[in-house]
């Protein structure tokens, strides 16, 4: 049954085989995607025609590698900018939320806490359409009452930022709150007794204690924003993010350039994941 009990050979081996099969299931699609990025063929499929780096570096005209593909490169840049802005915003507001809910008392605290958790249970598509509707209504309001045309309220780069910010902040707030709960508040009291102001305490003691959680949450926020599809789909304007751009290409047929981008994404996120894991181990 478990490792401390005697088990029959058949039981243990069938369990091993099951788990091996499970990991094959888990990694097969990623592995195949990576391998086919290097196949010397015009379609991302077998047979294997030998290796090539064309889908990364070829300047065209028959094969355009990812590093010469202006449209995809632009979408990577857009995603990158979005993710940086979103993660900074989320970390700031999420940390504020953690402080507010863990250390302060105020009326309607439970109601607000419930509202803060709401984005966890609202499907991303719904978040997307309600941001779109809300922004359009706000835009109409400003146009009819103040005769102002505000571009941010139309599907655009900034609306994507707002839409992603609206739910990623919750994740940051939860991670930072969890860390803040472990904080020994007598350290704050000691600092206050020694004459520090409240903001000095936060800056030199509490924030320092929270730093690993903030960095970890920031990294997760970056990744969530970079890879978000459901919410972004409804808010995107003339500057598609990478997932949207990839989706349009996958839907209309595929070239190994998508494999090349996927390969870069897999390698990039794996590195980020391992770094994040390393830091969270160190923290624990």
């Amino acid at each position, binding site marked *: *049954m478990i*490792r401390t009990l005697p088990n029959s050979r058949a039981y*243990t081996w069938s369990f091993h085989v099951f*788990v091996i099969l499970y990991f094959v299931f*888990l*990694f*097969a*699609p*990623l592995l*195949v*995607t990576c391998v086919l990025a290097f196949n010397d063929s015009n379609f*991302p*499929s*077998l047979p294997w025609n030998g290796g090539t780096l064309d889908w990364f570096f070829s300047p065209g005209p028959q094969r355009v590698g990812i590093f010469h593909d202006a449209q995809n490169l632009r979408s990577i840049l857009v995603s990158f900018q979005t993710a940086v802005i979103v993660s900074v915003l989320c970390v*700031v*507001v999420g940390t*504020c939320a953690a*402080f*507010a809910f863990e*250390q*302060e008392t*105020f009326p309607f605290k439970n109601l*607000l*806490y419930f509202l*803060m*958790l*709401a*984005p*966890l*249970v*609202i*499907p991303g*598509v*719904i978040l997307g*359409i*309600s*941001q*779109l*509707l*809300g922004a359009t209504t706000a835009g109409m309001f400003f146009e009819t009452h103040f005769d102002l045309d505000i571009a941010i309220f139309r599907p655009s780069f900034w609306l994507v930022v*707002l839409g992603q*910010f*609206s739910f990623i902040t919750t994740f940051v707030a*939860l991670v930072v709150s969890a860390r803040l709960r472990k904080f020994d*508040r007598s350290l*704050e009291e000691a600092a206050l007794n020694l004459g520090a102001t*409240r*903001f000095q305490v936060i800056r030199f003691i509490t924030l320092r204690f929270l730093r690993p959680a903030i960095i970890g949450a920031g990294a997760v926020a970056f990744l969530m924003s970079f890879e978000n*599809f*459901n919410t972004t*789909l*409804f808010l995107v304007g003339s500057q598609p993010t990478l*997932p949207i751009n990839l*989706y349009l290409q*996958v*839907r209309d047929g*595929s070239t190994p350039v998508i494999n090349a981008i996927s390969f870069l994404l897999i390698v990039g*996120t*794996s590195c980020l994941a391992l770094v994040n*894991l390393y830091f969270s181990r160190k923290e624990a």
Partner: protein
Amino acid sequence: MKTSRLSLWIFLSPVLMWLVLLIVLPHLDLFIMSFRAKDEYGRMGFSLQNYVHFFEEPIYWLTFVRTAVYSVITTFFTFLLAMPVAFYIVKVVRPKYKGFLMVLLLLPFWVSELVRVYGWMILLRESGVVNFFLLKLGIVDAPLKMLYTDATMIMGLVYTSMLFMVVPVISVLESLDDSLIEAASDLGGSKISIWREIILPHCKPGITSGAIVVFMLSLGNYLTPNLMGGKNSLWFTEQIYNQFIASFNWNQGAAFGFLLLLLSSGIIWAGLKLSRVKLGEVAS
């Protein structure tokens, strides 16, 4: 400790702005929009027409029901697959491999959902890798049609949301004392009764939170049903997308969105009530 009002406002004001402007108002707008429609003179006004339309057109409510039923099936299969894997990692494998397996388990889920779905597409389509090997080995004479079927779509959904079941189940299993299982086994309990009387009851909170998240993610998924499902496996999020982007009928789309939100919150509420777990516990 004396709390200053100033620090409360500094923490709370960005949080309030986030929750009111980006969570409460947009969803209120979604709710109001869903009750507005053009009357026979083309004027906008209060109307139940969007909801009536939903119940009158079988394609709409059938899609709704199918989305709900398939999400339940997905949740069930995710549980069936996740439970033994979690059990293996926590209780069966030698402790020195545990950390490594955990990393391996988490890694694929850092990669964008789009890349994972794309991987499945190039594996399973008619010119795909699996068919290539099946033909090569002479197992089949003609390529099998595996992509664009309901079963494949459910497999894709299970794959996509696996992590959110495995992780909470692992964390509850870790708090299960091995000696309980040993004692039951010494007293002559069979494997089935140990699972039924000890392991499953102990894991209930983890299973509940996993099931809630998996259900919600499947319900709100757009990518996997869109790219892996066939013509007959239309997902409700696709209906919402069609209303918003293709037909430009935002009021109808808002009604659909609100119905989906109602369904997901209803099921989550029921799940929480049945298992007596709090929303805050699911989140952490």
